[in-house]
């Protein structure tokens, strides 16, 4: 009887361990992109992420996003959103630009918790969505755990 109770206790413990989400409760990369884009189709191309493929320090990683667009009054980039795969939150940055930008290029510095994939989605003036991605290997993670 005693043995049975212990086994039951073990089972409960196992259930608790399994019920806990593996990487914290954050939406998956695809869900985050879907929440941004809605039902619209996202095509691959026209967006280039410029980020070092091997990063030593995840606390500050230079990232530059360039979109292939003439940036005229009638054909321009409306917004660029960057998403990550394995940080505690999927969003990195969302920028709104317009024909007055001249060039569709934005640069910043970001944090990366671990090696992962980054995706940038650009919305054009005609409403079409284009995406590009980059893989990054991080040797020293941003201090999420401390």
């Amino acid at each position, binding site marked *: 009887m005693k043995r049975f109770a212990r086994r039951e206790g073990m089972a409960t413990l196992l259930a608790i361990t399994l019920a806990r989400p593996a990487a914290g409760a954050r939406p998956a990369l695809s869900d985050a992109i879907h929440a941004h884009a809605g039902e619209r189709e996202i095509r691959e191309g026209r967006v280039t992420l410029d980020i070092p493929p091997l990063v030593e320090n995840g*606390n*500050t*990683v230079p990232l*530059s996003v360039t979109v292939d667009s003439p940036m005229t009054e009638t054909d321009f980039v409306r917004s660029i959103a960057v998403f*990550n795969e394995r*940080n*505690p*939150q999927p*969003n*990195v*940055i*969302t*920028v*709104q*630009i*317009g024909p*007055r*930008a*001249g*060039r569709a*290029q*934005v*640069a*910043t*510095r*970001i*944090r*990366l918790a671990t090696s992962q994939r980054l995706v940038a989605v650009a919305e054009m003036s005609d409403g079409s969505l284009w995406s590009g991605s980059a893989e990054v290997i991080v040797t020293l993670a*941003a*201090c*999420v*755990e*401390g």
Partner: protein
Amino acid sequence: MARVLLNVPRSAARGQVIEIRALIQHEMETGYRPGANGEVLPRDIIRHFVCRYGDEVIFQAALYPAIAANPFLSFTTVATETGTLTFHWSGDNGFAQTETRSITVT
């Protein structure tokens, strides 16, 4: 007042594409990091940045905890007229700061 580094050309030719670089001193505390006492530090980040050329908004950004400390942004604009560029950062705990730079367009 947080320290700010702004890189804006003083003068430009009309129609020229100019690059603007803006950096502001800020911890950008993520809200996921434990402090010295082991408790998770509350989030304290800059959430929004906007740049105006005269009265018109030319660039806006929503920032998340994935942006590194001392957030840096680089973007471009077409020099259209002599005027003022206004930069505004806002975020958690009532953080708000505005800076201006003038530009002469010939």
